């Protein structure tokens, strides 16, 4: 005997027997098929938010085409309808004045969860509803027809499950491929900053975030040092941590205290970057402008990827720290001679290239040997620390001081003429001269510090590092010859120097 229901189902499932990229594509095939099969005027597909009893219209299919539509319908106040739909899987419309039935669709969809560092897949149930309409009042849906509609709906549900599983697999694969590509780019970048820029741009491009930002901390993880970002136009932005508004400075504490935060409501994700206990920084992704929800799978993937970024930043920070240690004198915290010479040569080159001026101050602590011999090296070290502290705190950001050797220090003053250098020398003199060595070290004697300074100017006193050093040294010796605690500009005292030089050589 001919089984009409089985044949209809066979025909329908044959139509759906293909691979769909997503739910939308499946519905664009299933709804017109349904419309033709049951001679309908319109078919609607709704997502059902069960807990709110809210039907959210997704797609409409009429005679000629399917179209995205949006409408929210609450069925909360229709308990009878709701009960019947849930119980029987099909229910007649109670509102419309033409024949219409609602049919329940139930399918499964894989979702990701993060347990510790393990990603687990869980299957979640999804519910949707089809509304089938006929505009002519006499074309009601008969019971046999309703039975067949239910069977067809089950077939659509089955296909929805398959499509959702395929889609999730593809999404995971695509994400893994994209992150792998980014990791390769990162690994082949010669400079960390270039690599990070590429990573952020890549993440924004692939995940389509409105903004992506990387907050990097200082070496002990207590303060935000810098922010590297990619804005909505894809442009790279850089900001110093010092320029952050007050409320953003507390972000560091918030992110680390609360751990990686997935905030769907705020469309912002924070991922802390940690290596063992080191707070390296944190990543933030936001869709503040678009209000799009950040996908949980994206969050998990990025969280896993972030460990690579954290390691790379930490390594780079370590390298920077080692460099810093080798470039700075441990006692005075001033740059060492080798580092100074590099910078000095660069600055001279820049001054020549752009026709700029610069000055150099060479200084030493008066009677340093005597202090050392009388009160011991400990007091000598204390004096060096005090003088270098004043230097570090009294100079401009562009000035570059250095411990040249023993108690001798040198300061490079870019874009500074002789008169301006004298003002700086005067300031140093005033701040250092008179600093008293604590009496507990001096058996009650009053011992105060003072410095002598010699200044030379580029280009009039010389256009090489050696020449400038030599002139500053000559001026310094001129000062030390009976004028201790003061300073002199080579140009001002040059006429006086040859005799002194001779005397010194004798």
């Amino acid at each position, binding site marked *: 005997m001919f089984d009409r229901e089985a044949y209809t189902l066979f025909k329908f499932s044959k139509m759906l027997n293909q691979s769909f990229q997503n739910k939308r594509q499946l519905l664009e095939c299933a709804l017109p098929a349904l419309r033709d099969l049951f001679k309908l005027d*319109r078919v609607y597909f709704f997502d059902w938010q069960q807990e*709110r009893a*809210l039907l959210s219209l997704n797609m*409409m299919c*009429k005679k*000629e*085409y399917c*179209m*995205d*539509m*949006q*409408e*929210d*319908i*609450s069925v*909360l*106040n229709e308990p009878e309808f709701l009960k019947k739909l849930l119980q029987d899987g099909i229910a007649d*419309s109670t*509102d*419309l*004045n033409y024949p219409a039935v609602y049919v329940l669709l139930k399918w499964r969809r894989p979702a990701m969860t993060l347990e510790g560092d393990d990603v687990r897949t869980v299957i979640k149930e999804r519910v949707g509803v089809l509304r089938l309409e006929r505009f002519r009042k006499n074309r009601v849906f008969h019971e046999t027809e309703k039975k067949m509609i239910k069977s067809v709906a089950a077939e659509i549900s089955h296909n929805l499950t398959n499509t959702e599983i395929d889609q999730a697999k593809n999404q995971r694969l695509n994400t893994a491929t994209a992150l792998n590509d980014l990791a390769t780019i990162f690994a082949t970048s010669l400079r960390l900053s270039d690599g990070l820029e590429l990573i952020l741009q890549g993440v*924004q*491009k*692939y995940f*389509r975030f*409105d903004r992506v930002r990387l907050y990097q901390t200082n070496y002990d993880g207590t303060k935000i040092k810098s922010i590297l970002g990619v804005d*909505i*136009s*894809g442009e790279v932005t850089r900001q110093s941590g010092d320029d952050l*508004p007050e409320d953003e400075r507390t972000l560091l504490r918030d992110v680390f205290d609360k751990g990686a935060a997935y905030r769907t409501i705020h469309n912002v994700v924070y991922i802390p970057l940690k290596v063992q206990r080191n707070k390296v920084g944190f990543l933030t992704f936001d*869709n*503040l*402008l*678009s*209000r*799009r929800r950040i996908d949980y799978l994206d969050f998990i993937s990025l969280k896993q990827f972030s460990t690579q970024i954290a390691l790379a930043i930490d390594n780079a920070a370590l390298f920077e720290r080692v460099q810093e240690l080798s470039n700075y004198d441990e006692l005075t915290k001033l740059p060492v001679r080798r580092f100074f010479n590099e910078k000095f040569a660069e600055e001279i080159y820049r001054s020549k290239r752009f026709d700029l001026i610069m000055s150099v101050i060479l200084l030493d602590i008066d009677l340093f040997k005597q202090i050392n011999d009388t009160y011991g090296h400990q007091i000598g070290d204390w004096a060096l620390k005090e003088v270098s502290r004043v230097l570090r705190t009294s100079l401009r950001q562009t000035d570059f001081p250095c411990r040249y050797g023993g108690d001798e220090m040198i300061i490079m003053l870019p874009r500074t003429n002789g008169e301006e250098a004298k003002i700086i020398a005067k300031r140093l003199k005033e701040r250092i001269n008179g600093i008293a060595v604590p009496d507990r070290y001096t058996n009650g004697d009053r011992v105060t510090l003072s410095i002598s300074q010699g200044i030379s100017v580029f280009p009039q006193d010389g256009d090489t590092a050696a020449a400038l050093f030599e002139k500053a040294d000559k001026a310094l010796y001129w000062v030390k010859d009976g004028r201790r605690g003061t300073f002199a500009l080579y140009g001002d005292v040059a006429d006086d120097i040859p005799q002194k030089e001779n005397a010194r050589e004798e």
Partner: protein
Amino acid sequence: MILWVMPDSGARTKSDYKLLVQRFKQEHPGTDVSVQVFTRNILWKKIFMLKNPAEGEAVPDLVQIPHYWTALLTRAGVAENLSKMDPGLSLSSCLFPLRPHCYKPGTKDLYSYPWWFDMSALHFRADHLKLVSSDPEKDLAQWDGLLDVCARLREQFKEVEGYYPMQNSDWRGSLSTRSAFMEIWGRGAALFTGDLRGTLIGTPQFKEGVRDYITLALKNYMPILRERGSLGTMLSGKASMLISRKQGVASFEGKMGVRVKTLPVPRTGEAPQAYLSGMNLMINTAGTDKETALKFIKWCARTDNQMRYAAMMEVFPAFEESFEQLIFSSSQRLRTYSGILASARTLPNITITGTVVEILNKILAICAMQIVEGRFTQASLDIELDKAAKEVEYLLSLYEG
């Protein structure tokens, strides 16, 4: 060329566009135009993906956008500089209020081009109102008067099953921000302060304006979250009034055979307020057929096409000549809409306007759900608006202009 549009004529949208495209193709043989229709919600999400399309994803060449998305899409680098593509392109014949919304803020470069616009007005069935008011124009001048008329209509039609005094014009069947703007403005508030550097969302006036609007749903004068077409429509005689952006007086009359009158939206403050919203066309920087897109933009701006399209969508043409032709074609339309146009306001074209509308839409969607579930309180709405105000302040600090 791929054109992305919104379903402005509901389920008819695709067939309406089919006609439009056919005409364009007749004049431009050899061009290929494909129209894709997305709800505003989906289009809003999709425009953020235009910058970075996935592999193999078809990108549009031309996109229909509300006027206040121009600044955002320009900042995102998605909108093409039309002045560069065609230095001759001008807005000289475009209606004045629509002009500022086509430029990149602070420049004279065009990044979108006007297409059409709509204005909110109150339409009512004269036969219904006659039963409850001797002078509808006077009774419906103020918002309180409107609520009073709603109460009288409710009583008058209490025997009619599924009757609501006010039809819900929101395309989602929910509460919509655009319908609340006039009440908010009437109370003296707005989305932003005058200098566009702050927000007024958290002010008592703003909250009062929102409350005015949602009273329609709270008092059950307007259906929310119900099947559209089944309940409370003027067409079926189960509603008497409608606040709509569409100007379709003629179509009401044509379809219903009853007289429909139009008035400004009842005011909540001293002066009447009308919401004017322009729809523009934007060329996607990543499009592959920008030349055809530009041709289409110019073709749409032609008077005959403006007239035809406006009639089809029941909206207003964006250019002076076609607008005048339409407005002078009916004395009732002229009388009604010239007054409404004089009090019309637009949303400012700054980067975050679209986002702010999204935020408010979400708040009103929550309100709608709470009203249906019987758990709405003014306090919870106020808290949501205060939170929104903070968020908008933050957005303004990130995206100035």
